[in-house]
């Protein structure tokens, strides 16, 4: 059975920080309750999570006021290893939490530390691996597992000591839609078993089934109640930095009073009130989404690639062509070969067999440095490239490498910062900017090379709902200005709404290459490749077998029959 959690008047200011990360937060969780914690990036979610397992203040210096009580015990100020048996925590960077050389030892690590007898451990560890569907990787090095497997392993390790409270800090950040569904099932089981759960998350849909929802804004508790209360109000969601659910947003757009949260409820409500899809409107929406592609720019011909010491190929005989001006999304489960394919497009990887030609040049015969002027690549984590003392220097790095003179570099830096709306930050240190801003600095540094193609590896990861929308709008603007955009993402609403073409990979093989509408309309393909549809697409399919891809598109296609409904 879980323990109740009582957070009372909690404030925390990191040493050296100007303002508190948490301000007077009071929150109660009943034993066995599942609570989602949301809010903008930097709102204090991770700080609150760390207060719950005692990492703050024990391992992160700062000024703490108030207290956290788990069951009858005050946690604040106790050593973390003492709290560990009662409060398990899955950190945002779960890979840093994997410490052992094989899967069984990983799960057993916490039990060994607790001094559990070997026989008991040897009973419990296989049970947990079975629960997490990890028996097939027993004996493997955790570093060799897929992203989803690593995440389930990290969770198994946290669950091993049977904590009464489980804290998860953005657990779905790097995992594919199927992985998210599996994780949701595991958490539901834990909740049923009576474990108290606090889950920090940006994905609004994930929080729908929670018993309660807490939202932080600038360190203070801005909402504490049932998720339905907040999610029914899209405007309030936006104010709090949460991406609204598509169903209530659609109904708000249609000026309807009802605020259904799921496609099923929305279908019932719309049909009862005489709404249906207009044929002419749907056809028009379909035409508007179809863009005019230019000449072939990237030609991938029979490409296979195997990493050194890998068990099998990461790419298997992939052939495709990308034309100038396209907006392409690459979909697939973790480990399906998306990033490997993308890194072939600018020559970072050379095919084991087959060829990649960019603007007619074979990537195997062209130095990667020269490819930078043709294909820009924005890595998932901006901190993997930021190094300079100022934003100006960071953004000017690429053009300098390509041989531009000082005046040209200055011009390109100005233009690139203008495009990402960071004009005025030239002299700032990129290290002090927010994650969203650092991502835009990284993008500006790619744009300054003036590439014809830009590849984005998970551009929305780690961003809050509002930042995700802003990033995707920026990509759309770049595409409208003539850049060919290729996006690797697990974010289905963004893929459906912004891209025109989808490439789907499965175990290194190309299994679909079609318009986004066709791909999201193919239920069998989506099920086979672990993808899910956005709510609007589910709704449009249920209403009239159409594949509509955004709230805006669906709102324009819905017509109300006169004389029906209240």
């Amino acid at each position: 059975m879980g323990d109740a959690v009582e957070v009372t008047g909690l404030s925390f200011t990191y040493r050296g920080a100007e303002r508190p990360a948490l301000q007077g937060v009071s929150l109660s969780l009943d034993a066995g309750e599942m609570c989602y914690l949301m809010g903008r990036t930097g709102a204090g979610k991770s700080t609150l999570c760390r207060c719950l397992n005692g990492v703050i203040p024990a391992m992160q210096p700062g000024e703490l006021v108030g207290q956290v009580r788990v069951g009858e015990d005050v946690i604040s100020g106790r050593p973390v290893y003492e709290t560990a048996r009662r409060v398990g925590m899955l950190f945002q960077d779960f890979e840093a939490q994997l410490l052992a050389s094989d899967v069984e030892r990983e799960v057993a690590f916490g039990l060994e530390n607790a001094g559990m007898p070997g026989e008991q451990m040897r009973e419990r560890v296989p049970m947990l691996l079975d629960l997490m569907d990890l028996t097939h990787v027993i004996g493997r090095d955790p570093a060799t597992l897929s992203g989803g497997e690593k995440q389930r392993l990290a969770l198994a390790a946290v669950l091993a000591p049977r904590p009464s409270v489980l804290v998860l800090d953005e657990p779905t950040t790097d995992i594919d839609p199927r992985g998210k569904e599996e994780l949701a099932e595991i958490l539901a089981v834990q909740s049923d078993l009576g474990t108290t759960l606090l889950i920090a998350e940006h994905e609004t849909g994930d929080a729908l089934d929670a018993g309660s929802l807490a939202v932080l804004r600038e360190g203070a508790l801005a909402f504490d109640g049932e998720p339905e209360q907040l999610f029914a109000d899209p405007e309030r969601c936006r104010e709090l930095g949460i991406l609204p659910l598509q169903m209530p947003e659609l109904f708000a757009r249609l000026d309807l009073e009802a605020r259904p949260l799921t496609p099923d409820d929305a279908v019932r409500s719309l049909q009862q009130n005489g709404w249906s899809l207009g044929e002419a409107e749907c056809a028009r929406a379909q035409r508007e989404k179809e863009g005019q592609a230019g000449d072939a720019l990237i030609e991938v011909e029979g490409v296979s690639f195997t990493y050194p010491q890998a068990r099998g190929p990461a790419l298997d005989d992939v052939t495709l062509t990308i034309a100038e001006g396209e907006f392409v999304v690459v979909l697939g489960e973790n480990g399906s070969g998306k990033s490997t394919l993308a890194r072939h497009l600018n020559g970072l990887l050379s095919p084991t067999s087959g060829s990649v030609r960019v603007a007619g040049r074979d990537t195997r015969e062209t130095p990667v440095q020269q490819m930078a002027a043709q294909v820009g690549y924005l890595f998932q984590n901006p901190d993997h490239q930021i190094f300079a003392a100022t934003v100006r220097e960071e953004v000017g790095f690429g053009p300098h490498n390509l041989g531009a003179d000082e005046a040209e570099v200055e011009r390109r830096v100005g233009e690139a910062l203008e495009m990402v709306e960071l004009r005025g930050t030239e002299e700032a240190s990129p290290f002090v900017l927010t994650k969203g801003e650092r991502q835009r600095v990284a993008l500006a540094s790619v744009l300054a090379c003036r590439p014809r193609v830009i590849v984005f590896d998970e551009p929305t990861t780690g961003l809050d709902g509002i930042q995700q929308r802003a990033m995707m709008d920026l990509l759309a603007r770049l595409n409208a200005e003539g850049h060919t955009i290729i996006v690797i993402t697990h974010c289905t609403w963004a893929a459906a709404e912004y891209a025109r073409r989808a490439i789907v990979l499965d175990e290194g093989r190309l299994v679909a290459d079609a318009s986004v509408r066709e791909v999201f309309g193919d239920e069998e393909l989506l099920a086979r490749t672990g993808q899910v549809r956005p709510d609007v697409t589910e709704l449009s399919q249920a209403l009239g077998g159409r594949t509509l891809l955004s709230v805006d598109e669906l709102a324009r296609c819905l017509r109300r029959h006169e004389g029906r409904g209240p």
Partner: protein
Amino acid sequence: MTMSLFRHVDSIGHRRHPVAKLLALPLLFVAPLAFNDPLWALGMLLLTFVIVLASAALPNVGRVVGLGAILLVMSTLLWALMLPEREPTWTLGPLCASPTSVMYGLAMGLRLNALLLLGVAYVSCTRPEEFTWALRRIGVPATATLALSLTFRLAPMLSGTAYTVTQAQTARGLDLRSGGLFTRIARYVPLIVPILAYAMRSADDVTRALESRGLGAASSGRTEYHEYRWDAGDTLLLVGALALAAGAIWLRASGLGEIVGRL
């Protein structure tokens, strides 16, 4: 991809008790170090291949062939030119060498390769956890073994980050292959800064993760998931390694396997 050299297979080496392997390793180093005659050093090198095979480490040997070749060539060259008190046979300006110094350099290269192979055999059949556990069992303080554990954990993480950072900067046109020495050194700054920043963050994350999983919690001592049992094979390994070391010292003391009266 993984940086680890540990092989997830079963072998005679894998089945040995961690303490037996830890104690046998320095004893096994003695025989290759004992002889500076290249023929004897070659014999010892071939002997280490038996240990490599018994540890299922042969696939890992391929990963260190380049390093072994560099050790052999550089050692032969440097010792050929630097071995003191030899009658020079060949001179070129201030540089001089003799057949003895060349042979000594060659033997030194072979000896270093034997040590390298023994190391590869050891890490191929011993997990980092077994190594640190064995250290604790022979009395090394827990704080020191914890520091070693962290190093084992951070090394592959940093290696992975270095790979990603290099790709990210190369994709922005960074050229690490052309230019003079100082130009090239300057070009490493865009790699070093993000890697160091990541290293500092990772060290914090790993420390927090270790404590959050209860490291240091057990008042009555940490237990082990895997039980290690000492058997006759472990005794045989230690006795064999001891006999090999003693035999090598005795042979060398008898004047065998020696071309120069020094180590």
